[in-house]
C-alpha cells in the first residue's frame, strides 16, 4: 500500500522483511478503528457511497453481491445488538433506500422510530436508548460524515432539552419525536431561496456531482424563469453528471456535459461553481465527491467563486489536516476494461477541499467558511 512518505520503496521493502525486527510495533494498525466495518466490508467499501450509487442506479453486479452478503451478515449478528425485534439498522436501511432522502435525515427518521417503539418511562431511559441506537448507526457506517453529524446533532438536542423540568415524560417524548420528524424537512427550500440572488441572468454554472441541494437550487432558479446554463462534469465513476444532466434537461435548462478532465478547459467561460457537500468540517473546508478539490483549485486560479450548498446538519467536528486524514471511503471503480495485474487503483470516493471556497449556502444563512467553526462551537459547547 503506498503511504504518504516519499520513501514508499523503503516502506514496501520493510513490509516484506520479517516482522521480527520490531516485535512490539508491527505493521500499521488497521486504518480505521471500525472492526465492525471489517466484518461487513472486507474491501472497505463504503456503504454511504454504495447507497448513493444505488440511488443513481449505477450498480455493478459484484457490488450488489457484496452488499447483499454484507447486509445478510449484519442481520445475523443483529440480535446481540438489540435484543428486541425492532432493529434500528433495519429501519435506517429502509429509509435510506429512498433516493429523495438524505442520509442524515434517514438516520433521524430511524431514531424517531426508536422513540416510537421505545418502552422507556423516563427521559433518561429514552436518552440512553437513543444513544445506543445512534452509536449503532454510527458504527455501522463510519465513513458517512453526515450520518455521524446528524446523529450527534440530534443527540445533542435531546440531551440539552431533556433537562426541562416543567414537562412530563409524554410531552417531552412527543416533542423530541416531533423534532425528529421535522428534521431536515425544509432546509433544501431555505437554501434554494437564499441562493437565488447569486444566480443572475446569463450566467454559466459549473456543477460537480449530484447533490440534492444543488439540484433544488437550480430547479428553483429555473422555475423563477432565470436564464442560465449549466456545465456538468461527468462525475466518474458514479457518472452522476449524466443523471443530473438528464434531470436538468427535463427542466429545459441548457446543459452541457464535460469529462472531468475538461474542467480547466472550460473554466474561463464559467461564472461560478456550485457543489454540494458530504460534510462540512471545522476548518471551513468541505468533504465532497472526488474531484471537488481539483475544481476548486482551478476555479481559484481563475478567480471564479466556488459556492457550497450544505444543510447545517452536515457540520461535523472533524478537522482533517490533509487528504489522507479522513476515514478511507472506497468505492468500486469500473475502468471499462479489467485492471491489469500488479496495478493498484486509487479508489477513494471523496476528497477534502480545505480552502478556495467562497461561500456556504446553508439553512442557517449564507456563511463564510470561518463561521462554520463558530457555529460548531456554539452548538457543541
Amino acid at each position, binding site marked *: 500500500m503506498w503511504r504518504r512518505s516519499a520513501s514508499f520503496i523503503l516502506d514496501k521493502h520493510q513490509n516484506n522483511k520479517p516482522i521480527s525486527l520490531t516485535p512490539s510495533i508491527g505493521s500499521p494498525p488497521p486504518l480505521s478503528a471500525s472492526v465492525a466495518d471489517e466484518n461487513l466490508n472486507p474491501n472497505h467499501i463504503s456503504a454511504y457511497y454504495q447507497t448513493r450509487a444505488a440511488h443513481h442506479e449505477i450498480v455493478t453486479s459484484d457490488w450488489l453481491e457484496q452488499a447483499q452478503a454484507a447486509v445478510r451478515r449484519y442481520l445475523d449478528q443483529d440480535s446481540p445488538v438489540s435484543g428486541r425485534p425492532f432493529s434500528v439498522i433495519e429501519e435506517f436501511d429502509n429509509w435510506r433506500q429512498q433516493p429523495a432522502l438524505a442520509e442524515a435525515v434517514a438516520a433521524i427518521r430511524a431514531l424517531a422510530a426508536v422513540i416510537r417503539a421505545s418502552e422507556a418511562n423516563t427521559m433518561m431511559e429514552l436518552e440512553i436508548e437513543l444513544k445506543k441506537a445512534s452509536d449503532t448507526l454510527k458504527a455501522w457506517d463510519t465513513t458517512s460524515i453526515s450520518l455521524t453529524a446528524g446523529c450527534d446533532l440530534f443527540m445533542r438536542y435531546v440531551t440539552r432539552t431533556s433537562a426541562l423540568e416543567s414537562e412530563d415524560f409524554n410531552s417531552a417524548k412527543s416533542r423530541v419525536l416531533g423534532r425528529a420528524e421535522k428534521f431536515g424537512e425544509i432546509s433544501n427550500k431555505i437554501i434554494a431561496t437564499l441562493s437565488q440572488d447569486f444566480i443572475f441572468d446569463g450566467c454559466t454554472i459549473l456543477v460537480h456531482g449530484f447533490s440534492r441541494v444543488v439540484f433544488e437550487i437550480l430547479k428553483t432558479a429555473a422555475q423563477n424563469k432565470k436564464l442560465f446554463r449549466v456545465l456538468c462534469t461527468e462525475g466518474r465513476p458514479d457518472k452522476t453528471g449524466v443523471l443530473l444532466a438528464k434531470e436538468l434537461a427535463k427542466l429545459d435548462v441548457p446543459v452541457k456535459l464535460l469529462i472531468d478532465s475538461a474542467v480547466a478547459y472550460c473554466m474561463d467561460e464559467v461564472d461560478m461553481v456550485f457543489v454540494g457537500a458530504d460534510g462540512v468540517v471545522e476548518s471551513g473546508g468541505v468533504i465532497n465527491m472526488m474531484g471537488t478539490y481539483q475544481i476548486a483549485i482551478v476555479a481559484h486560479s481563475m478567480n471564479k467563486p466556488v459556492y457550497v450548498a450544505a444543510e447545517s446538519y452536515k457540520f461535523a467536528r472533524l*478537522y482533517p489536516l490533509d487528504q489522507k486524514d479522513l476515514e478511507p471511503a472506497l468505492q468500486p471503480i469500473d475502468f471499462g476494461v479489467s485492471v491489469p495485474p500488479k496495478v493498484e487503483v486509487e479508489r477513494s470516493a471523496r476528497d477534502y477541499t480545505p480552502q478556495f471556497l467562497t461561500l456556504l449556502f446553508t439553512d442557517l444563512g449564507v456563511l463564510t467558511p470561518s463561521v462554520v467553526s463558530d457555529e460548531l462551537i*456554539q452548538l457543541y459547547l
Partner: protein
Amino acid sequence: MDPPSRFLHSVPTRFDSPDRLRFHHFSFPQLPLPRHDSSSAAASAVSPSSFSYSTAATSPTASPGRVSRGSFSRFSFASSLPGVGMDSMAAATSSSVPASGLTTVSVVNMPPPPGLSEKASGVGVQKSSKPLKEKTTKAERRALQDAQRAASKAEGGKAPLVSSGSVASANVKAAKPAKPSSQENDVAVAAAGPSEKDRKKDAPHPRMQYDDESRVVKAKRRAVVKQTEAKNRVELFRHLPQYEHGTQLPDLETKFSLLDPMYPAVYKVGLQYLSGDISGGNARCIAMLQAFQEVVKDYSTPPEKTLNRDLTAKISSYVSFLIECRPLSVSMGNAIRFVKNRIAQLPITLFESEAKAALQSDIQRFISEKIVAADKAIVRHAVTKIRYGDVLLTYGSPSAVEMVLLQAHELRKKFRVLVVDSLPKLEGQLLLRRLIKRGIDCTYTHINAISYITHEVTKVFLGASSVLSNGTVYSRVGTACVAMVASAFRVPVLVCCEAYKFHEREQLDSICSNELGDPNVISKVHGRGDINYLDGLTNNANLQFLNLMYDATPSDYISMIITDYGMVPPTSVPVIVREYQKEHLLV
C-alpha cells in the same frame, strides 16, 4: 542638542515649589479625569519632591530630549493629555531616536492643584500621534477640550500644547502596530501598583511603558525588588523594562524581614520567577494561584474594611511585586482577572470563613478545570492527529505538547520526534531528556537547521504562551521561524494551547509587547570559552544586546489550534474568547 537640554534643566526646578508649578498650570493643565476616587486622590498626593527626576541617574543613553510626563501609576487608563509645547517636541523629535516615539500618556485621576503639579512636573515630550477619536470616551474628550481651552489661554512661554492621540479606556489593548516612526499611539499604562482595582475588571491591563523615565523612577521607589536598569539598551525596545540581571536576588533576600505586607508564599514565588526556576505559562500561573490560595487561607479582614475591597487591594499589591520580579505572562493575567472577579462577586453577607472557603475552592476549581482538565482534553484531541510513521517537530519545551507526545507513546503509536532548540535558554534539552527517558525516538537540532530538516517532517506541534484574537500565536521566540518554515514546506502546524490563555487583544508584530531577558546570556556561549568573543563588550556604546523572550506568529502559518474546546481554526479564537467570558461570568 540645546533645546532639549534647556528643557531638561528647566524641568527639575519646577518641581521645587508648588507655586512655580501652579504657574505652569496653564501650560500643562491637568485634565480632570473621569474616575475620581478618594483613595486614589490620597495616593496621588505624591509630592513633587518625591518625584526626583534625575536624568543623570538613569541611563546615560536615555535620549536627553525625552522629558517624560509625570504619571501616577495608580491610574489605569490612558487618556488624551495635551502634549508638550511644539518646540520641545520638535527638539525631542530630532534628538530622540525615532523608535522611541512610544511616549506614554498616563491618565491620572487627580484633584487639580496637586495633580496639576504632578502633571506639570512631568513635562513629557509627546510625539504627536494621530488621535484615535473613536476610542476616547466622553470624559476624555471633555478633558481634551478643557486642555485645549486652557492651552489657548497659555502665555507665550510655552507653545500651545498639542494633544497627543491617546488611547482610550482600559478596554483598548496595548497592542498597536509598532512602527518605528514617531507615530505611536500609546496606551497609557497604569504601572505596577495597586491601581488595578480602578481598572475595568474585565479589561486586561496594558503594560507599563518603560521609556517614560519619570514613571519608571516612581515605580522604582515603590518597588520591592530593587533592580537597576540596564545601561545599554536597544532603542526600539525602550518601552519594555530591562534590568541588570543578578542584582536583585541578594538584595531581596536581605530585605525579606523588612517586607511587612509581603506574604511569604508570594515572596517565594516571586523569587522563583526571578531566578528562572519556574518558567512556562502553566507553571507560573499554577504557582501564583497556589500562593494566592495560601494568602486567602491566612487572610483576616482588618476592622472597618470589607473583605472584597481589602483582599483585592492585597492581591493587587502582591501582583505588583510579582511583576517586578518578572513581567506577567498572559496566562497569569487572565488568572488574576478571574481571582479578582471572584472576590468582587462574593456576596457581602457571607461570613469571612465562608467567603474564604468559597474563594479557595474557586481557585482550586480554576486550576483543575482550566489547566489540568484542559490539558487532558488537549491531549485527547491531539493524539488523534498523530498517525503511524509520523515525524513530529516541536520547538522548545511546551508542556502541552510534551503531554501529547507522551500519551501518544502510551497508545503505542509509532512516531519519532524532532526537538528543535535554541540558545540561550536551551529549553529543548529538558524536553529531550524527558522524552528519551520514556523511550521515544528523538532527534535534536538547533534552530539554524530547520530548513534543512523540515522536508522530512510530517507535522509540527507548537506550544503557546497565548493566542490573540486575530489568531496570532504569542509564544517563545523562535516559534515564528519554525512555523514559517513549516508552512513553506506545506507541513501542517498545530498549536496546543489551553483556552484560558486566549486573550482579546490583537497584536500585529513582536515589538509592541514583549519581554526582554538578560542581555548578558547572549554574549557568551556556555561551556565554550574559546568562542566568547563578546565577553566584556556588554558596555560598549556601539553594541547593544537584545534578548527577546517572545514572538508573534501570524495566523496564516497556523493550520489549527488545539484547545480544550476542541480543534479550531485560528479564526475562531475570538469566538472562544467570547464564549469563555460568558461562561466566566455565569460561573
